[in-house]
Structures are given as structure tokens and as C-alpha cells.
């Protein structure tokens, strides 16, 4: 990995041993339904944590709590070197900003800005939020787009791209912010099956480059290859978590076994 590699994660500013992110006791209800019942999650630096589980298990809500898109009723989220955000009180703008400065998100529905070109989508955050010089942000953006095979699409509008291409732009838009943590919310669920591979290849490459990521996914085979930790959730609780060799190959909990069986029997 060369020092100028555009895909390489930014250097870290806190001791290497501490986990990058620790979430504790995250609780969330929608109306009367308790969707998360005290979730704990630790994300060590350079690790890939995959959240898996049936629909409605709360995995996406956990992910969205990590950057404050969802505001839990209780629990804390703490980045190494950052504030502890305690959701017992309504988070302040500053606290939300501190979570969002350190992370970037890739969405299931891509959520590219349709009125901006691919390049404009990518440099929007660096230029408008991080106030980096436009020329520098543009050069970085072009290098990143090149790396994911979209160098020729810089001036296209999102509607001119396939779903797989749009999602790769979504990933590049996240990388351009040079975040410490990448959050992926079912990044391939909205894609046609033949387009899934290209996007997974990019994510796999990011994992080998040392990025820290939390990934909500239904792609269990993929998760077993890239993830350091698998977190299996059901009914708003973490049922079991550990390395893929345990959770996916030798699950302890009956609910995990049942879930994996149902998927493998298809």
C-alpha cells in the first residue's frame, strides 16, 4: 500500500490499541415497539464488523444510531479521541457533528444527489463541509473514481449510471470525506444480482486496505470472507457475535442456527 493510495484510510490520531468505536446500551423504540433492547457494539480499528439477521431485527437501526441518523432513547456512542455522546439527553448539534465527522455512510438506495454530476457528488462534502480547496478535492475525487473504474463517468449525472455504478459513486463519496469509519447499510440489496459483484469487490478491497467498517448485509458468504466479527441480531438484541468461523460455521444459539438454515435451504 503506497502512501499516496487514494483508497487508503486516513492515519489515526489516538492510541492504536483502543477500539475506534464503542457503543453501549443502545435502546430505541418506534411507538410501542422496542426495536433495540440495549445493544452493545465494539469496533476495533481496522476491523470489519458485519451485522446480520432477519428483517426487522434492528440491525439497520443500530447502524443509523452510530451517526445519529436515528436518535436512540438511551445508550452511548464513543469514538476514540472524541466525546462520549450520551443519548439520555437529546444530542447537541456539536455532538451529532462529531459523530458524522468521523464516519461516512453508504446507503441501500445510494441517495446520490440527482442534480449534481458524479464528480460534484463526490466533492460536495470535502469542499462545502471540510472547506478543502476545490482543485485538491477534485484531483482526489478523480483518483478515487479511477480506482473504482468510474474515471470516465465523472461528468455524468446519476440517472445515466447503472445501480452498481451509482453505488460505487456512493462509496467514493463516503471515502472522499476521509472518515475513520465507514458505515454500509445493505449496500447491495437494491442492486440487480449481476451488479452485486462489482460493489462487493470494492468493499472487499477497502477491507484489505485496512478501513474500519460496520456493514449491514444479507450477503452471508461475502460477510464470512471480509468480516472480522459477525454480529447476529434478532428481535432487537444481539443473539451472538464472534468471528465468522464461530457464528457462521459453528453457531451456538438455536436462533442463529435456525436463521442460517433458512437462508442455506433456499
Amino acid at each position, binding site marked *: 500500500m503506497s502512501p499516496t493510495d487514494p483508497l487508503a484510510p486516513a492515519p489515526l490520531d489516538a492510541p492504536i490499541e483502543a477500539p475506534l468505536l464503542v457503543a453501549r446500551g443502545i435502546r430505541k423504540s418506534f411507538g410501542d415497539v422496542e426495536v433495540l433492547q440495549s445493544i452493545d457494539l465494539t469496533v476495533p480499528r481496522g476491523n470489519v464488523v458485519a451485522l446480520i439477521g432477519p428483517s426487522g431485527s434492528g440491525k439497520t437501526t443500530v447502524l443509523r444510531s452510530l451517526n445519529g441518523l436515528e436518535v436512540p432513547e438511551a445508550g452511548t456512542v464513543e469514538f476514540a479521541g472524541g466525546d462520549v455522546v450520551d443519548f439520555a439527553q437529546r444530542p447537541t448539534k456539536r455532538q*451529532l457533528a462529531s459523530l*458524522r465527522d468521523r464516519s461516512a455512510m453508504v*446507503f441501500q*438506495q445510494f441517495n446520490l444527489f440527482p*442534480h*449534481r454530476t458524479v464528480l460534484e457528488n463526490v466533492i460536495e*462534502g470535502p469542499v462545502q*463541509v471540510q472547506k478543502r480547496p476545490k482543485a485538491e478535492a477534485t484531483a482526489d475525487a478523480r483518483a478515487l473514481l479511477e480506482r473504482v473504474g468510474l474515471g470516465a463517468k465523472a461528468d455524468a449525472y446519476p440517472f445515466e449510471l447503472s445501480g452498481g455504478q451509482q453505488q460505487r459513486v456512493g462509496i467514493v463519496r463516503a471515502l472522499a470525506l476521509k472518515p475513520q469509519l465507514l458505515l454500509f447499510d445493505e449496500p447491495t440489496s437494491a442492486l440487480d444480482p449481476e451488479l452485486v459483484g462489482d460493489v462487493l469487490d470494492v468493499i472487499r478491497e477497502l477491507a484489505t486496505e485496512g478501513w474500519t467498517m460496520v456493514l449491514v448485509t444479507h450477503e452471508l458468504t461475502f460477510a464470512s470472507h471480509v468480516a472480522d466479527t459477525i454480529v447476529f441480531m434478532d428481535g432487537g438484541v444481539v443473539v451472538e457475535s464472534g468471528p465468522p468461523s464461530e457464528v457462521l460455521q459453528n453457531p451456538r444459539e438455536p436462533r442463529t442456527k435456525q436463521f442460517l438454515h433458512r437462508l442455506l435451504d433456499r
Partner: protein
Amino acid sequence: MNESLWDLLLRSFLPIVGGAVTGTIPLALLSFALGLVIALGIALMRLSRISVVSGIARVYISIIRGTPLLVQLFVIFYGLPSIGILVDPWPSAIIAFSLNVGGYAAEVIRAAILSVPKGQWEAGYTIGMSRGQTLVRVILPQAARVSVPPLSNTFISLVKDTSLASLILVTELFRQAQEIAAFSQEFMALYIEAAVVYWVICLVLSSAQSVLEKRLDRYVAH
């Protein structure tokens, strides 16, 4: 058609078009511009989570939509002087029309903002933008596309409604026609002439609307 009537139509054409150029059109443009600013403010208040703020916006919209524009105009021009506030004809007209556009266009803008998918707000937040930044750079440009057809309607209505200003002594298209008609006693001919000039203005506006829609369509799949 007798020759003197034809002659009258020709001679009245310049004053009537002059009334459009110096009265109707600037009155409509200025009121619409100010009205849009008011409308954006009211729309954002209406979307506020603070119930007092959205309540004020709701009441404003209700009053504007629930009372005749002519009455609003008369309250400002003929009503305010009785409590000691004198407003000249032109400012009265601009105040009344822009407040009126503000009420109608607020609902259009609110609906347009709500029509932008929630994921666009979230995408803005996750790249570190504030609410205001996301609104200005992500949401409003997309809402603008949606609101062009209904706002064009509002503008075309406004152009025609400016004829009401003739009743508070603003010299515009219709007042010119009225004065010439009263003088010449050729009411039918003059009012039809005025109607044709309004119609031509609105035809031009309609084609401007199509051009604008095409321009804003360049990033949308067809």
C-alpha cells in the same frame, strides 16, 4: 369595423402596452420576487417542529387564502389611513400582492420540499452538512424542479390579478384601457384589446415555463 374604431384601437395600443410595460409587468415581477421570499419563509415555518411557529404560518396561509385579494388590497390602501398609516398606491399594491403570493406559494414550496425523498436529507447529514446547508444545496434545487409548474400558475394568476391595482389608482394596463374607454365610450373594443394584451403576456410566460422546465430536466431520467 368602421374606420374611427380601428383608428381608436391603434391609437390606444401604445398607452395600453405602455401600461403593461410600466405598470403590470414590473408590479407582477416585483411582487412575485418578494412573494417567493415570503413563501419560502412561511413554508419553512410551516415545516417547523415547533408548534407555535408552524401555527403562525398556518394562520397566515389561512387568512391569505380565505379572504379576497381585492379586500386585502382595500384594507391596505383605504383601510390603513384610518388608523394613521398612509401608503401610496404602488407600495400598497406591491405589499398586497406579495403577501398574497406568499400565502399561496408557501403551500407549493412546502409540498415541493416534502416531495424530495428523506434519503436526500440523510445523505446531506452524513457528509457532514447542517440542516440549513442540506436545505440550500440538496433539497431546494430538487424542490425547485417540482415547483416550477405550480409556481408558474401562481405567477400567471398574479399577472392577471394586478388589474385589481387599477382600483387603487395604480396606472397599469387595465387602468389605461378604462380611461380611454371612458373617454371614447368604446367599452367593448377597449376591454377586448386589454384582454388580448393580457393573453399575449401569459402566452409568453407559458413558453418561458416550458423552457425552464426543460432546463431543470437535464438531470432527470426521461
